[in-house]
């Protein structure tokens, strides 16, 4: 009940949004919907999933397409050093660029997306990557500075092959989406048995 009230109020009241984020534990889709209704991000498309811990430092200069998934990452369009440069040298510099994330992009945990970045459709940005560049559509990017290391279409072939080789492949073949709460306990048990089998752990 309280969760529903907070969710209802969150788009229009910052305090409610803070409480909803903290106590309502919204999932990525729910939080993206709140962000969309708040309207602070310059453009936020449909069907996105954005973890509540994602930081939008400059939402006014951030453009996000449809079905974009953002992990716990940071998007920052400006360069804060100009404040120091002004104070120290009296320099009047503008250092800021837009962030444009096209449709169906995934950005992983801890990634830092800086102003001037455009991420092409269907790309995957690995955890911890730092980007300030144009990323061609369908790219897999990792590292700091971010580097295109593979094509998503190639990655998919290997990930599908790996999935098929897991002992729980049959469950995954039946799963709708990336998470199924009802299936998870059984999956967890099978994964733990497989990952932590004594012959897979050195020294045991």
């Amino acid at each position: 009940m309280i969760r529903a009230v907070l969710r209802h109020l969150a788009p229009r009241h910052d305090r409610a949004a803070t409480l909803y984020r903290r106590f309502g534990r919204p999932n990525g889709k729910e939080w993206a919907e709140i962000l969309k209704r708040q309207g602070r991000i310059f453009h936020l498309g449909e069907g996105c999933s954005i973890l509540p811990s994602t930081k939008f430092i400059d939402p006014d200069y951030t453009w996000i397409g449809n079905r974009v998934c953002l992990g716990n990452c940071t998007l920052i369009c400006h360069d804060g050093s100009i404040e120091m440069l002004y104070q120290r040298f009296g320099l009047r510099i503008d250092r800021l660029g837009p962030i444009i994330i096209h449709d169906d992009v995934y950005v992983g945990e801890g990634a830092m997306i800086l102003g001037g970045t455009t991420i092409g459709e269907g790309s995957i940005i690995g955890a911890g990557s730092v980007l300030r560049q144009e990323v061609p559509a369908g790219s897999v990017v990792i590292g700091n500075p971010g580097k295109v290391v593979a094509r998503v279409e190639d990655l998919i072939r290997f990930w599908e092959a790996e999935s098929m080789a897991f002992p729980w492949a049959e469950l995954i073949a039946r799963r709708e989406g990336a998470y199924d709460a009802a299936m998870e306990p059984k999956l967890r048990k099978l994964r733990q048995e497989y990952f932590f089998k004594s012959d897979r752990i050195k020294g045991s």
Partner: protein
Amino acid sequence: MDGVHSELQDVFRSVFSDDHLEINDQTTAAEVDGWDSIAHINLVIAIEKHFNVRFAANELAAMQKQNVGNLMELLVRKIDSRGGPA
């Protein structure tokens, strides 16, 4: 087989940017600098392009735990079943 080995070595050298890289049947990912999961993808894609073959999902999955000798056997079978020169 020797011709395939030589060409395969060239592909390895190109993918891992190492002109002196030597591979043999026993070579595994652990012995080649930079042969991680992403490099493995790029290596296999480069092999597919170079030899004009395509590996099936079960072959890709098995490949991860095998050595260069296993890879070459598979590759030779693929080239033979394709019916053309390597």
